[in-house]
């Protein structure tokens, strides 16, 4: 099939997508978006998380055709052209990145959470990110990062309002 979808804000058309292809395989192998990782291939680790219409999905279990006509956000599409998204800044500053393999999926899950809950408490963060495994950090600095990101986004929002 010819797959037409919006990838990181750009309308994308991809010919000859087999019906059994996963969203992960077309992102990595056909389109070269290598920021999305495969950790297990069975939807357990969350390394392949991307946002489909703003909701986190395991792209290793998501059929590519399900993206037709919808918006896909990968880690490559999160930062503004001239810098970093506050979630990315917070992950760097909080020491939430060690090996970095879970980071793209973790950041996207955190971003999706903060879009719907501006100031999540620790339990809400744990629930939202429980599907993203990390073997390095012990998660503490990741929780710190999500809270720091929430504060940054809140502040930016206030600035937007006052500036607008």
């Amino acid at each position, binding site marked *: 099939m010819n797959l037409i979808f919006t990838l990181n804000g750009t309308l994308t058309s991809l010919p000859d997508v087999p019906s059994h292809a996963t969203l992960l395989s077309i992102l990595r192998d056909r389109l070269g978006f290598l920021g999305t990782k495969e950790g297990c291939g069975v939807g357990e680790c969350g390394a392949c998380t991307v946002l489909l219409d703003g909701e986190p999905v395991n792209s290793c279990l998501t059929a590519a055709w399900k993206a037709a006509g919808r918006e896909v956000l990968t880690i490559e599409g999160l930062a503004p052209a001239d810098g*970093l998204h506050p979630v990315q800044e917070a992950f*760097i500053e909080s020491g939430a990145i060690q090996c*970095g393999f879970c980071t*793209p999926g973790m950041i996207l899950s955190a971003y999706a959470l903060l879009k719907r809950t501006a100031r999540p408490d620790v339990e809400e963060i744990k629930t939202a990110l429980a599907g993203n*495994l990390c073997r390095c950090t012990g*998660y503490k600095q990741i929780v710190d990062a999500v809270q720091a990101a929430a504060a940054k986004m809140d502040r930016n929002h206030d600035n937007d309002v006052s500036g607008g």
Partner: protein
Amino acid sequence: MTIGTSPARVGSLEKALGRARFGADQGERGDLFLVCVRADRAPAVIDALELDRALAVPGVVRIFTAADIPGEKLLGIIAVSKDQEFFADKIIRHRGQTVALIAAETESAARKAAQAVEIRFTELKGVFDAEEALADDAPLVHPGRADGNLMSRRVIRKGDAEAALSSCAVIHEAEYTTSFIEHTALETEGGRAWIEDDRVIIKACTQNPHYDQADVARFLGLDPDRVRVIQAETGGGFGGKLDVSVQPYLGLAAWLLKRPVRMVYTREESFLGTGKRHPFRMKCITGADADGHLIALKMDLSADTGAFASYALAVATRAAVHGTGPYYIPHVDIDCRLAYTNNPWAGAMRGFGVPQAALAHEGQIDAIADKLGMDRLEIRVLNALRPGLSTATGHVLSGSVGIVECLERIRPVYEKWLAEVGTSSKTGRGVGLGAMIYGIGNTSVSNPSTAQVEWTPDGRIILFTGAADIGQGSDTVLRQILAQRLDVQPERISLVRADTDLTTNAGATSASRQTYISGGAILEAASVLEEMVFDRFAELMEVDQLDLKMADGRIWVTGSPASSMAVEEIVQSLADQNVRALGNGRFDPTTSALDPETGQGVPYATYAFAAQTAVVNVDRLSGEVRVERVAAAHDVGRAINPQCVEGQICGGIMMGLGMALMEEFVPGKHANLENYHIPTMMDMPDIDPVIIVECPEETGPFGAKGVGEPALIPTAPTIASAVGQAVGKPMRHLPISLERVMEALTGADNED
């Protein structure tokens, strides 16, 4: 001051943006894809490999077998125990062993062909338990081997444990067991290889590029300088990427086909085709006097090393050497034996046998305290190693022994939690305590690191290090060490890392050694560079170089601030004489061999220490254990980067929690994360406080030792101790599954 601050980690920007390229991300269009054909049962004799159907799969280019290996067939991380067959030749020794390698134009063709290979075999009688393997009539995993299935053994004898036990006021005897554990680094093994100027270039994830180079060269029958290994960004290792995995296959296919190839293990292959943590069985007898002084320890340790040696020699020694824990015991008799079996092979995993031994030594000291009616923390402080006391190997410690301080710093937290929770098993809650000692660097062998530091005429400072940063933060920490030494900002230093063409051997990223040993090599390199610059400055300015110092990127003469010069100018003047301002450094900690009969000697130059405490809640209906809180105190010598240290400690605690409560790899049963569970964010306790204790090590860079493995070691014993208190019975077998908790609660476990 750079030391003691936490600048952003090197590489974290690229990782946050999704731009970091890991082993699995290597490859170009047109690369061939490689897939291993693995045996699904063992042991067995291969009668025939039927390859025709696989060769007929469109896109298949070639199928390699053992007959295609141009060089040495046996590889292995330790020089005297190279026994690993990367292709089963005639005998399949463990389930999951590779028998053939498919090279195909696409991944799907390669995987389809791998399925189409038919292995015709005759099954053999195997052995799957360490103690059974050591019995006289056991089937031999490597027939013809002089020691049979005994792969490695370490004996430690100090004093006279047998005699001393007979005079002890209290004795405790118990057995402990642990499970096979899979590292489960989030990135599976992967990489790419190609040919350039008649050399093989491999770019793959690894903890040990210079070893990879040596063993791939042996495998291909090439001089090492015809193999270049470049470390790709590495998504965690924990010991699992110390042995070679994809590298020999990548090298073989690229070399024989003269084409670029790539390979990525699926998670299932990563479970089947890489090493595991050794499962241990530990029988212990501990004796103490009436005041609680530990007097004697007898330990009989056995472990399953699977079909190949990997790090078995190191694990046997490490477990034995650390058998007493961080306590002084005058009479010690430890015998540790590792046996070959037909299970998947076990190798290095974060702590090399010490996390297993810690379950035993901590369980024993809790039991002795209980028998004497002593406080569990007091008995640890009473027996803790101090300067002037000797370890099990007779190593008399001098400085940097922080165990008492770790225990004292954890005391207020422990006592507060104990007061809240109490010691009754009726509440379903318990408080546990655990402590550890860990020797930094390889055991009783030379394990140097080398490094270079260059200052260029255009003002760049370049650190060349062979050390592989696998996410733990060595790039960040090593750069801070150099920045401090040269009095510059760390951001000014560029890194050339872990490439066998551009850097020299730093040894493995293992044994918690890179901060201490590579840090030492870098300080030495900086001193050599500084001396070159001082020499030239002294010549140019006609001053005595004893009066010079480097600061702010300039050389200054003490007492005459007008006579200073920018380092770049001096470096330029060296360049004018065709001299490169480049310092070479090397550091190798001082150790001595262990006596083969008694295990006495100096295995390490320095040790890290730690104490942790935890609160758990046990659901008496379901057996579910929740770890509510953990506090940790770690003597790291000096925290070069406190945020990195805290990250290691929290990560170690979570890996220790997995070892304590959920992780058990059963060969043939577990092959992915759907039934092999590692801790998620929902399992995370409140980890607070994390206390960094700094007892400086005089041979360490700015006093630093190491923390990577120590972070994990006390956690499982701490949690086991807490669960034991909550259920009213000691928990001596890991993982503490729901079934084990229910058995303990109902008395079905037959433990006393």
